[in-house]
């Protein structure tokens, strides 16, 4: 009896020791992320590569639902912090940086020459002169259009804003929506505003506006909306009840001609039956002549929370993700654009090629209205844009309201 007990104890001890020895073999790197299925597969492949290059690190990826993550991150950063966490660049990361929840990773940028290779995304990763994360992908915004709808209406692909507006009359005659959008989730409307603003008054002005330095009642803001008002009657009616996917369906069906969207929508267009022959892409046309061309390019990023336990390996991971070859492979799988300028994009995807070209020659990159402006301003702004597209006659009241929000949101 006594012997049995001792034997069992020894066995237990042996088991415990072997498991703890195994755990010591590999250093755990906890990574919280919010990937949809396709990015998840791409990142699982990336993690396999990383573990092959660093056999003594065990990356434990915990994936969250994309929308749920936005709430979850606020909890887990303060309670059960991972070593790595996904988030977004620009003003979106400011609350976490200012609250001391993200670590300064300037040394990773320094040691790996990222200031050069990730130059296009550096500004959006910098707060107080320090970098707070590493970008791994971005995508372009622009106008996607249905070539068949252009044929049906007898319209030419426009080179200028005036031509674009003139086309709208032709589309109207053919009973096609010139521009479609689905603003139920609000953000698609902000894409149109961003381009109206960037093309009318330029990047620097737009950034001043989203940074709260310009009054919403300013004449230059009204100029932006004056241009927008020219196409407002030709935007899909009832867009406030449509999701962005519903509007994409309208374009697939040829009921709408143009769509200001991000490159992720290409998957939807193609799933709906469009091909490289019927789906077209163009940069948003110039409105005010001579203004340097800036684009929207929302950047997805990885950060090290302040509560991280395995900071050394986390930095190793960031450096790995920033690498040109790694980003090439990752973004090919994501069908998005690498942020490393030495990476390449697949030549057989005309939308990625066009996007890469457009972004690398751009004067500057904005993140997107809801990432450039603080949350409170973004929400109020996007509601205002939606209301303007339904009731343009309310413009003055909308701008008054936004100005009131500006007074509070930037304290």
């Amino acid at each position: 009896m006594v012997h049995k007990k001792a034997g069992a104890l020894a066995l237990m001890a042996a088991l415990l020791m072997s498991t703890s020895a195994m755990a010591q073999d590999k250093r755990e790197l906890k990574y919280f992320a919010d990937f949809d299925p396709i990015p998840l597969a791409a990142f699982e492949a990336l993690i396999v590569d990383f573990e092959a290059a660093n056999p003594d690190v065990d990356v434990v990826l915990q994936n969250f639902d994309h929308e749920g993550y936005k709430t979850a991150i606020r909890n887990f950063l303060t309670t059960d912090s991972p070593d790595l966490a996904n988030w977004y660049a620009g003003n979106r990361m400011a609350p976490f940086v200012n609250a001391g929840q993200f670590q300064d990773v300037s040394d990773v940028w320094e040691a790996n020459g990222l200031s050069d290779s990730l130059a296009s995304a550096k500004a959006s990763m910098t707060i107080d002169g320090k970098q707070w994360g590493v970008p791994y992908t971005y995508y372009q915004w622009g106008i996607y259009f249905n070539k068949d709808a252009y044929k049906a209406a007898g319209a030419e692909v426009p080179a200028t804003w005036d031509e674009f507006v003139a086309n709208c009359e032709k589309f109207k005659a053919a009973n096609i929506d010139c521009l479609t959008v689905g603003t139920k989730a609000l953000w698609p409307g902000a894409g149109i505003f961003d381009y109206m603003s960037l093309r009318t008054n330029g990047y620097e002005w737009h950034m001043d506006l989203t940074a709260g330095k310009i009054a919403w009642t300013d004449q230059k803001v009204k100029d932006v909306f004056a241009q927008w008002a020219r196409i407002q009657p030709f935007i899909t009616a009832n867009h406030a009840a449509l999701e962005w996917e519903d509007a994409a369906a309208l374009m697939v069906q040829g009921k709408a001609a143009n769509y200001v969207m991000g490159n992720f929508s290409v998957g939807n267009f193609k799933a709906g039956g469009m091909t490289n022959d019927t789906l077209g892409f163009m940069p948003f046309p110039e409105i005010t002549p001579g203004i340097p061309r800036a684009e929207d390019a929302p950047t997805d990023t990885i950060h090290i929370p302040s509560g991280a336990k395995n900071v050394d390996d986390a930095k190793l991971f960031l450096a790995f993700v920033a690498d040109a070859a790694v980003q090439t492979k990752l973004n090919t799988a994501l069908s998005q654009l690498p942020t490393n300028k030495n990476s390449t994009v697949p030549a057989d995807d005309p939308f990625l090629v066009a996007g890469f070209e457009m972004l690398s020659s751009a004067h500057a990159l904005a993140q997107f209205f809801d990432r450039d402006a603080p949350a409170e301003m973004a929400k109020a702004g996007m509601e205002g844009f939606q209301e303007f597209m339904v009731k343009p006659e309310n413009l003055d009241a909308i701008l008054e309201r936004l100005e009131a929000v500006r007074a509070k949101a930037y304290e």
Partner: protein
Amino acid sequence: MSTYWKANQRRLAPWLFLAPGMIMFAIYVIIPIFQSMWISFYDWDGLGEAVWIGTANYVELADDPEFYTSFKNNIIWLVLYLLAVPAGLLIAIFLNQTVRGIRLYKSLFFFPFVISQVVVGLIFTWFYAPGFGPIFKLTELVFGQGTAILADDRYVTYGIIAAGLWPQIAYVMILYLTGLNNVAPDQVEAARLDGAKGWRMLWYVILPQLRPATFIAVVVTVIGALRSFDLVSIMTAGGPYGSSRVLSYYMYEQALSEYGYRMGYGAAIAVVLFGIMMVFISGFIWKMWRDETER
């Protein structure tokens, strides 16, 4: 110890049995209420330092057009939602028959209450959907131009309430059906001998006996209207441009949603909503207390 226990056993036992429930109630209901009130005096983004700002959140609320839109919508909800009570009674009376298969008909009428509010919201969103929704098609047929109810700030709240009424009527109906089972047949018989029928029978004989059912139906409907959140969230997310918000949704938006980082302001809205609910709840409790003591 044991002598004290023996002497007071009968007095202490009920409290011991109540203790687990009371502790839970305190932890999950009472204490959070006071915490919300406490937070409502702070400016706090949920992450950084909370700053004491006194009543500034309430001052801002008193001056916030979004708040009044939400408040107005809550009133509309409250008034229209109460239609579920007479509608449920009507259906219950119609269904209170003894024919073959009546159980099946009853359960079919009860069906909308069984499915999740989220599903109800999605179904009605499709009804209203521009382009292919049957309601949209109907308005197109009648008026020549289709109306997308959820995209129009004039109709959107009514559209959501209609969706909410569907399961709520079913709920009220089931309350009345069980109530009707308990209507004393001898009283109905006696009334019939005295020549009562139709409306007079309903009003003077049946309805008084249904009072407990009516009370519960009104209580659940009022509370249901005030905490309406899921349908608003699913069908419009408060849109278009905030015109279908209700207080509970506005609170969520300010404190917890993607663009909300204002715990204090959200808590202030919660406190106001709590105050409104308290008016009704204390009314109900007072009535229950009165009924019990009168007996």
